[in-house]
């Protein structure tokens, strides 16, 4: 039996992680620090290197350089100590299609050497919890996408891992299944499981992660809580649309801001607070300028994402008056 992983307050600690495939650099010096018991999200567009990070941390592939500790062990030198404490749910459902849902879970229980009785109990529990009890005796190949994903996640939990890796767990799921999965992740986190989640959905990271790192082209572009990241972009503004160009001109003289002549829109910096909005409207009233439409734009993670990953130069300009 491999020795139990050392008790550490840090679940994952990575410094200077590098990985290339031939000429192509996939990870170019990554630092991560994930406290035990938190939900961490690695956010990035397709091809940013998220899956490569997960593969390295879960002992599937080796790194070229860097210091890596997962649950206090180096995946390269002591892979079995790492494997003993982690659960992994990948992008592709890692279930055995020829086996039934129950048999898949029992297979995991046997490989975790839980013993017959414990294995059976745990399988039944997980089938109930993941709403698969009715389909327990059907082959997994006959499951819907959402069911397969739930079974996949359940299989990753049979060994009661202290650290759970979820690589884009909700990609391709319908909104209802996605919400269900978020709920499950929240419950796991509340029970003290550390969760390492990769996603390309900002909403997902915003909703369930304690801390978020934005990965772009192999490097961490930003790291922090959702609020910290939002504060980094000065994207809050009020948009005013006018009926005619002379009104736009007049408003711009009074309020400043950036103007879009074609759309007859004026963007004024502001956070959308009631006091700020009232004074803005008062100033327009004082000059007798009538606005057709007003909308408030608060910065969300989309602004952060687009600004940081360089895929949204247009939006970045628009967000910075």
């Amino acid at each position, binding site marked *: 039996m491999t020795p139990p992983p050392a008790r550490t307050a840090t679940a994952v600690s990575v410094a200077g992680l590098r990985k290339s495939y031939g000429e192509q650099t996939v990870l170019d010096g990554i630092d991560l620090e994930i406290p035990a018991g938190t939900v961490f999200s690695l956010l990035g567009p397709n091809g940013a290197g998220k899956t490569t990070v997960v593969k390295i941390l879960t*002992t*599937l592939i*080796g790194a070229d350089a860097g210091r890596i500790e997962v649950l206090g062990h180096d995946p390269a030198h002591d892979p079995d100590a790492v494997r003993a404490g982690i659960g992994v749910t*990948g992008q592709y459902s890692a*279930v055995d*299609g020829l086996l039934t849902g129950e048999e898949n879970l029992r297979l995991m229980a046997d*490989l975790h*050497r839980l013993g017959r009785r414990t294995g059976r109990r745990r399988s039944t529990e997980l089938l109930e919890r993941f709403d698969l009890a009715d389909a327990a005796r059907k082959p997994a190949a006959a499951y819907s996408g959402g069911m397969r994903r739930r079974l996949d996640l359940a*299989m990753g939990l049979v060994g009661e891992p202290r650290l759970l890796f979820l690589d884009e767990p909700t990609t391709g799921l319908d909104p209802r299944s996605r919400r269900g999965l978020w709920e499950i992740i929240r419950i796991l986190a509340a029970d003290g499981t550390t969760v390492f989640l990769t996603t390309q959905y900002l909403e997902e990271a915003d909703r369930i992660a304690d801390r978020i790192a934005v990965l772009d082209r192999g490097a961490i572009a930003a790291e922090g809580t959702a609020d910290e990241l939002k504060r980094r972009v000065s994207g809050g503004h009020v948009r005013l649309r006018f009926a005619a160009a002379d009104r736009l001109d007049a408003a711009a003289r009074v309020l400043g801001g950036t103007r879009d002549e074609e759309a007859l829109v004026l963007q004024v910096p502001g956070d959308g607070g009631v006091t700020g909005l009232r004074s803005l409207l008062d100033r327009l009233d004082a000059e007798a300028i009538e606005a057709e439409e007003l909308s408030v734009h608060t910065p969300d993670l989309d602004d952060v994402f687009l600004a940081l990953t360089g895929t949204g130069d247009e939006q970045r300009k628009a967000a910075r008056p």
Partner: protein
Amino acid sequence: MTALTHAVGDSATMVGRQVKHLWRSPSVTLMLVGMPLLLMMLFVYVFGDAMGAGLGGGPSGGRAAYLEYLVPGIVLMTIASTAQGTAISVATDMTEGIVARFRTMAIARVSVLTGHVVGSLIQTVLSVAVVIGAALLLGFRPSAGPGDWLAAAGLVLLAAFALTWLTVALGLASGSVETASNVPMPLMFLPFLGSGFAPTETMPAGLRWFAEYQPFTPVIETLRGLLAGTGAGDSVPLALGWCGVIALGGYLWAKRLYGRDPSV
């Protein structure tokens, strides 16, 4: 617990998985055994009389004599056919996520492969039993004693073990299910290019040289001797040697392919 008991326990779990696979899709086994069965009937009924006459005939005529000559070759072809199925199922496994999951678990690495090998051996035993049963129905009357049968069964298992490790490696090396189903195909035809269907003495010089020295021939010769009750003969060392070399080579190759870092 030691690493060995873990390896045995995990392998047993994986064998259980393979047996469930066999049980769930019996059509796969039937398809693999179908080809050798068809060829046996074709050769016995279409060519049997003429071929038997060429062999010098027998007490009950040419066809029966040829059937007796043919069975060992068909048995080897059955082993090769099942091994080909192994390459396909290994390649299928590797392209699906489940093996990635196994790799992230603290289990004996080789257990995934031993599961395939043992599962395939079980499949081979069933397939060979079907082929022998069919041969008996066609009039195959071997004069082997209990000891001969036992030795023959051992040889079949050994040959299957060797070929299965080889095809496990081929399945790992092929990278896709399509490739995995084509690459081991020549194995199916090796009995033709040996003493499986006709005595090597009847072949032209170049082919005859290949036929006499290729691995299947000594195994077929030994099996033929055992089933005929005339003793194992002098091909035994060569047969065992070939099986040993193929098994070891296949095992080491497969182990290296499975253990390699998939990113390199």
